[in-house]
């Protein structure tokens, strides 16, 4: 590694790697190791601190991590492993280029980088139908995210990501709100951030901020955990003048449901719930989605063997490394879902939806992993009264 030891030293300090006790809890819980890969967060941390000359090992390990955050949850010592991975990816990308293996040959990162062009004039709202009430101007916007793009890109696996945007707006309309939808909103940049592309990530933040500002938007509502995480935690660092209020749709719904302002029709189903890493471990929302499901009469929630803080990853994050081990993690997760006896898998992240759907369609598994998978907002919008 040619990086100045100063930068590495700072990364070690920022992520508290030196607090590591070598207990190995992180490695024992890492889904990549559980899936059979010889992979150890503990060892990466130790190598970086004491054997930085083993650059090949460190570099590979940095790109392989799913950034799922289970290790951080387990660590008794407060090591911030995800932050370590994020900062290391930035450092490596600056020095060597964006070398991480990108799933789908990096197509998604391509369109995200294309969106950094300031002159772009997108047609991203073609899916809006007349029944969805949206405003041209106003202080509250709904952030659609990449759903329209996913919808096209993944149409071969029949995953309806656009329904998440539609149903979010239906729910907002039901609450008497007509959000602004921005025709030139950019990708929030989550996947560029987590693949080390800081420069383009910050450009997206600035362009989104300008778009909000130019339209008088003061609050952004989103149903995507990744958009929420980026807009609320990372955008303000990239655009210090931002005073944007960022609201997670399920928080809003949970409050409204609690106050009795929205109620739901019965749904006699047995469901299980996949905690998305960005919603659970990174944003601490475990009870809100469960509380909302509990408001739907008849909907029985059966927890999987690993849930809440210990939930198993959907197999991939930021489209950086989908491999045989990702697949094993997905198969294991779907088996856990089936073992609950549920016939409906609910999640709250478009990417969990994409990845679980993709894994279920594996022809080799002959449909044995198949079960209905839906977004939480889909269920709530269908059942709202």
């Amino acid at each position, binding site marked *: 590694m040619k990086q100045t030891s100063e930068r590495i030293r700072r990364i070690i300090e920022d992520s508290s790697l030196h607090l590591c006790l070598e207990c190995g809890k992180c490695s024992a819980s890492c889904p990549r190791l559980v899936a059979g890969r010889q992979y150890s967060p503990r060892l990466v941390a130790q190598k970086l601190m004491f054997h930085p000359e083993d650059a090949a090992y460190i570099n590979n390990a940095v790109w392989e991590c799913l950034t799922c955050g289970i290790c951080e949850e387990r660590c008794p010592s407060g090591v911030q492993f995800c932050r370590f991975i994020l900062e290391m990816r930035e450092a490596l990308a600056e020095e060597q*280029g964006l070398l991480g293996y990108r799933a789908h040959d*990096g197509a998604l990162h391509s369109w995200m*980088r*294309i969106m950094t062009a300031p002159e772009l*004039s997108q047609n991203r709202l073609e899916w809006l139908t007349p029944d969805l009430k949206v405003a041209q101007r106003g202080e509250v916007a709904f952030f659609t995210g990449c759903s329209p793009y996913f919808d*096209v890109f993944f149409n071969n696996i029949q995953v309806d990501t656009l329904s998440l945007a539609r149903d979010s707006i239906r729910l907002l309309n039901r609450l008497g709100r007509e959000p602004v939808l921005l025709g030139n909103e950019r990708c929030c940049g989550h996947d560029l951030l987590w693949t080390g592309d800081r420069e383009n990530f910050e450009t997206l933040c600035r362009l989104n901020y300008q778009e909000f500002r130019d339209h008088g938007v003061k609050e952004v509502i989103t149903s995507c955990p990744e958009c929420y995480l980026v807009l609320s935690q990372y955008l303000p660092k990239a655009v210090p003048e931002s005073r944007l209020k960022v609201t997670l749709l399920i928080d809003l719904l949970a409050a409204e449901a609690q106050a009795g302002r929205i109620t739901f029709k019965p749904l006699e189903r047995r469901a299980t719930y996949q905690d998305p890493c960005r919603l659970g471990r990174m944003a601490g929302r475990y009870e809100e989605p469960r509380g909302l499901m509990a408001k739907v009469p008849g909907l029985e929630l059966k927890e999987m063997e690993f849930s809440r803080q210990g939930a198993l990853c959907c197999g991939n994050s930021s489209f950086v490394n989908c491999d045989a081990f990702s697949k094993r993690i997905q198969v294991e997760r779907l088996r856990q879902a089936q073992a609950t006896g549920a016939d409906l898998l609910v999640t709250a992240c478009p990417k969990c939806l994409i990845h679980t759907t993709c894994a279920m369609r594996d022809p080799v598994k002959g449909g044995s992993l198949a079960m209905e998978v839906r977004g939480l907002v889909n269920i709530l919008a269908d059942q709202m009264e």
Partner: protein
Amino acid sequence: MSPVNLLGIACNWSPYCCYNAAGQAGLELPPSFRLMRVMCIGRINQALILRAFEHGADGVIVLECEDADCRYGPGPEVGHNNVARVRKLLRFLGIGQERLVEKTFLADQKEELVRVLWDFHRRIEALGPNPAKARQERVAS
């Protein structure tokens, strides 16, 4: 008129035959045009086409065999499917779906190939540069 960058992605079989024959016959090709030869259009995915636009291509033309002529089986169908999807993505992005086209050729259609390429060149020249002009990755990988 600004110079444009065009990328042709050609299947090794019929379209490349035409391209080769056009070269041997001394037919003039548009100067804006660079050709990438692949063994089969079935090898091309959405990412490779999108990447051309990310790196500043103003237009991409996918040159493929007729469905029934594919040496491998489903190549051109894979191509139609990918082109249709990327055209939609390009429309959403505001780059414009007209910047991506596909054409099928028989092995003996060199004049047709040259005509199609000139025609595409003129249409893209009229449209001007891709509004998402090159934001290069630091290192192409």
